[in-house]
């Protein structure tokens, strides 16, 4: 028994250390830090295998909020970023962390809520249909106690957009109200919570459509204002600042994303499953 125990221990040791030390032999790879919305929609699962097949470069996707993705970039823990917060992206480049931002695609933000629509968003037409009116309607219905609002509250592109919309409308005290809930969670979790609480939420259309089947208590109540456009950009890390960054491979991914046939694929993605595209390729 003693011998067996000893042998077992030595075996475990050798295997353990061996596994730990062995370099995994693998193809060239780059790390893409991106937002949960692009991963959750399934778009990357469709595009990246094509890229890998053509170039032999594997893409490791780390999906976090836009804020964290940019922070990962600032620390040099990725090779390339794909996010949707134009102002922050501009700042990122001005600070020298990235080389250049290339516009990839856009989708739009929509406001979802329970089909009963206590804020009456779906009744907004004509001149009354701008986003300020919609935000005000939510605010007033919230103060009346007839709805709850679920916010991501997590430093994501969607959250930044939502805050910008409240500020634009002049409703800056919204976070102090009782009907406003900042979750600190991803888009998927926020939609699931909104569905359970029959509340309102701002979401990108892609994530909502890709999850809509399980969200029986939610429908799109407001959409269309230009302020709700949601452009995605891709930024390789600056190799002069981060020696580790694989700029060449990152640039290859940029070129791939803007290529005509790939842009066409982006524009068609989701039509089969959802009856409408999740992203649009056209102009920003």
């Amino acid at each position, binding site marked *: *028994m003693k011998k067996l125990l000893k042998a077992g221990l030595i075996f*475990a*040791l050798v*295997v*353990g*250390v061996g*596994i*730990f030390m062995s370099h995994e032999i693998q193809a060239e790879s780059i*790390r893409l830090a991106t937002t*949960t919305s692009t991963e*959750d929609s399934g778009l990357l699962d469709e595009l990246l295998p094509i890229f890998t097949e053509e170039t032999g470069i594997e893409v*490791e*996707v*780390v*999906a*976090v909020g836009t804020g964290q993705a940019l922070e990962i970039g*600032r*620390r*040099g*823990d990725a090779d390339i970023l794909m996010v949707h917060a134009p102002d922050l992206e501009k700042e990122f480049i001005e600070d020298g962390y990235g080389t250049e931002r290339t516009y990839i695609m856009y989708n739009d933000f929509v406001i979802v809520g329970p089909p009963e629509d206590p804020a009456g968003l779906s009744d907004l037409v004509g001149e009354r249909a701008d986003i300020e009116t919609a935000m005000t309607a939510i605010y007033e219905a919230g103060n009346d106690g007839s709805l709850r609002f679920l916010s991501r509250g997590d430093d994501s592109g969607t959250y930044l957009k939502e805050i910008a919309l409240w500020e634009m409308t002049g409703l800056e005290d919204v976070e102090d109200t009782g009907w406003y809930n900042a979750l600190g*969670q*991803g888009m*998927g*979790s926020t*939609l*699931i919570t909104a569905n359970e609480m029959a509340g309102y939420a701002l979401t990108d259309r892609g994530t909502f459509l*890709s*999850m809509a089947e*399980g*969200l029986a208590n939610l429908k799109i109540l407001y959409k269309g204002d230009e302020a709700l456009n949601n452009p995605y950009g891709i930024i390789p890390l600056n190799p002069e600042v*981060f020696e*580790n960054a694989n700029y060449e491979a990152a640039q290859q991914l940029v070129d791939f994303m803007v290529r005509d046939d790939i842009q066409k694929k982006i524009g068609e993605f989701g039509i089969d499953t959802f009856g409408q595209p999740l992203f649009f390729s056209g102009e920003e």
Partner: protein
Amino acid sequence: MDTLIEGFQEAFRLLISLDREVLQIIAVSLRVSGTALVFSVLIGLPLGTFLGLASFPGKKIITAFLYTGMGFPPVVVGLFVFIIFSNAGPLGDLNWLFTTRAIVVAQTVIALPLVAGFIMTAVMGVDKNLLLQLRTLGVTRFQMIWTIIKEARLGALIAIIAGFGAVISEVGAVMLVGGNIRGKTRVLTTAIMLETRQGRFGLAIALGIILLTITFIINIFMLNLQEKERN
């Protein structure tokens, strides 16, 4: 209720069909947690034995640290490991962040206090009369320590079970330092997190059932070992 039934069906289907991606997630989970466990036992066994036997000034403080470590929030461990291995951090040159190595480090830090703490308690629980007897028999120091470890082996087994249970089921630290990269650092817990986030509860439950089954099988195995050791 429907979701639960769906989950069980899905789990069954995944296991029967040996879904490649699921198998890979299971493999990464076992490999990473197993490696972390080996490291924490390698360090924890001598450390725990030493603390259980020796008496020296400052032992109380070290013991207090160890007990604190046993209840240390894993996500805080994850935060520190993230900062240390981040490119801008002190060990950034290793490029370990978002690899299984960073996960192994985090899990080792999480399991080590548990393993060392339980082994220390087990060693302290060894009959004092045995020590006296051994001393009168004039055994060497090494022989004495070996006898004590053997006496405390049931406790040591519990230490290993506790350590493994803690790391295989950990999610916060693993998510932070591993990044949940598909095919690379995605483990059972972070996969469950991802599926839940996307509202695919069926698949999430299925993965949960697989995780529970794995820990259950390993515990059965350990219990058998314990039984054998006792006889």
